[in-house]
């Protein structure tokens, strides 16, 4: 039991950069813009955050620099796709590669150099609570932030009028335009805000969870976050669940070495990535019309609960996701 608690807390901690990045991406995709540059952005901001914190000795400055880098890359993506009308996918992909190489180049002097890290800060009183204490209140500020950002994003999207506008931007920008909102400006805003979060997530890696900087330090995390956002159906809680699932898979992978003596170590590193995509595929498969047709063949007794489950699994993308906005 105690071990389980420790492991759950470890999963919460390990997923924190993913959660922050995924919330950022959820915001921008909800507003209708795919930020495919995520992987590169995270690398570049992880490197910048680490370098700035190392040079200035100030962690806060590091996080700020990382957020700025994330916002900047998002702004470039916005400039090219929203203003200049190029394909979001193409620009995002190119930016992902460009930022990756930029991080390798500019980050070379900081590779595998020891540096500062976010200090452990248990919350007094609360951390002594049974169960909840070790689970939620014995972490560091980055992890607390990741725990808070999920309800915050959910509230922003579903509980506020701003959230209505953001979701409408992704569903039908023309309708938002008709209501007098500057679609492009708001899409920029969401994209940049999301990008800043992605930047912070990068710094959460290099200054906290995977402390330090090395070539392609956050390996593939950005791509997996993009997949998790789809898995989560663009809904903050489910997206967060996806992040925790992935972190749990990684933990299991690390542990599995002793249990599976015939499997080379290096395989288990890749396994969570493959499994995550597989889960995404399975969820999509289960929620597909073909599955619904299969269910229809079953006895009536099973149909209702199964169809309900399928409907719950089904996640529709924002209708205008990735589409350029054209004035009606």
């Amino acid at each position: 039991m105690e071990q389980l608690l420790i492991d759950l807390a470890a999963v919460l901690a390990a997923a924190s950069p993913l959660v922050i990045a995924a919330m950022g991406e959820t915001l921008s995709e909800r507003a209708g813009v795919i930020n495919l540059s995520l992987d590169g952005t995270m690398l570049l901001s992880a490197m910048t955050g680490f370098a700035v914190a190392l040079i200035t000795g100030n962690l806060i400055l590091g996080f700020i620099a990382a957020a700025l880098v994330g916002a900047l890359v998002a702004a470039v993506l916005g400039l090219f796709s929203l203003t200049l009308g190029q394909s979001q996918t193409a620009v995002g992909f190119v930016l992902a590669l460009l930022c990756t190489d930029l991080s390798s180049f500019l980050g070379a002097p900081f590779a595998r150099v020891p540096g500062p890290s976010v200090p452990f800060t248990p919350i007094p009183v609360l951390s002594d609570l049974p169960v909840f204490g070790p689970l939620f209140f014995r972490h560091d500020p980055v992890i607390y932030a990741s725990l808070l950002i999920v309800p915050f994003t959910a509230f922003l999207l579903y509980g506020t009028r701003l959230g209505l506008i953001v979701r409408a931007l992704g569903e039908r920008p023309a309708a938002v335009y008709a209501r007098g909102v500057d679609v492009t400006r708001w899409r920029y805003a969401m994209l940049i805000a999301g990008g800043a979060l992605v930047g912070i997530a990068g710094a959460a890696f290099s200054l906290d969870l995977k402390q330090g900087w090395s070539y392609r330090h956050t390996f593939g995390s950005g791509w997996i976050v993009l997949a998790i956002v789809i898995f989560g159906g663009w809904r903050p809680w489910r997206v967060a669940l996806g992040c925790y699932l992935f972190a749990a898979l990684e933990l299991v992978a690390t542990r599995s070495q002793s249990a599976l003596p015939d499997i080379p170590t290096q395989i288990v590193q890749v396994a969570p990535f493959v499994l995550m995509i597989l889960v995404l595929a399975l969820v999509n498969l289960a929620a597909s019309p073909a599955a619904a047709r299969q269910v229809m063949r079953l006895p009536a007794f099973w149909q209702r609960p199964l169809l309900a489950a399928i409907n719950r699994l089904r996640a529709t993308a924002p209708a205008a996701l990735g589409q350029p906005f054209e004035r009606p």
Partner: protein
Amino acid sequence: MLWLRQLPDRYTRMRLDRLKPLASLTRPLLALLAAFVLTTIALLSSGVAPLEAYRLILFGAFSTPVRLSDMIMLAAPLLLCSVGLSITFAGGLYNLGVEGQMIAGAIAAMVPLRLWPDWPPLLLWLLAGLSGAAGGALWALLIGGLRRYAGVSEIFAGLGMNFLASGLALYLVLGPWRRQTSASLSGTDLLPRELWLPTVDRLRLAPAAPVIALIALVIVWWALTKTRWGLEVRAVGLNPAAAARLGIVTARRMAETLAACGALAGTAGMLQVVAVHHALIPNISSGIGLLGLLVALLARADPRWLLPIAVAFAAFTVGSIQLPLTLGIDSAIAGVLQGALVLFALATRARR
């Protein structure tokens, strides 16, 4: 251009006509300039003399026969990948899985080489080529399957398959195909010398590799522009719904484009094994597939432009290896230059 208005009408028109080709060059030149500005800022920020770095990046690949041959041996698989990607781009697919297809091809090519090392080399090379192409194609078809049956976009299916392929390569290198002495990340045991594709004396240049790549380029160019298949693929890429209405089996064409791209990437992987590394190494694809995507994006999947761009990009990459050796800076700056070029080229394109 104000001064032109004062000239007699006939003269003006003539001058403007002559200026037209120049005008069409301004946008690309701007893109080029912007890319160099960005790269220069990066270089300056790390305290390097940009001119020296550019000299190395741009000309480093041509300075000695050894480097020239290295460049060609990089350009060949790069060209193969980007030629394959020009098919999938024509079919409207972002095949990010090209990296994994290359690895799958390399693994598949290793199978006959390991099974029957005593067979005549010529036969083995042929077998390796076929099996490499088949392996890449199969890997690509899996992506097609995930897209069609599980509704996973080909971008993420491709990425997932990339992870899987590199995991598989690692497993083989460290597991069943490990070195006789001990497993090593540096790869499997080297192939017997006689199975290496013949190289030009003292150089690492295997002429067969560029020849194969060029043949693939010509065939694909012909197939995309002259054949019904090419027209149908383009129709599917432009508008799958309408293409289906006109009687084209879109799912099949998409699968075919993926398979064709996978086969070419697999061939590239095979070349990496028999002509470059002479073993299966974990990082056998070395990012060539993704670089191929950049090439294809810059060439706008137009086969005629693939060759010069692939050569230029290969030259950048090979030239940039000089940077850490002589200037002590990271070679990733070549990637920055390549990425910035494509990015700004996208930006200067007319809005669709």
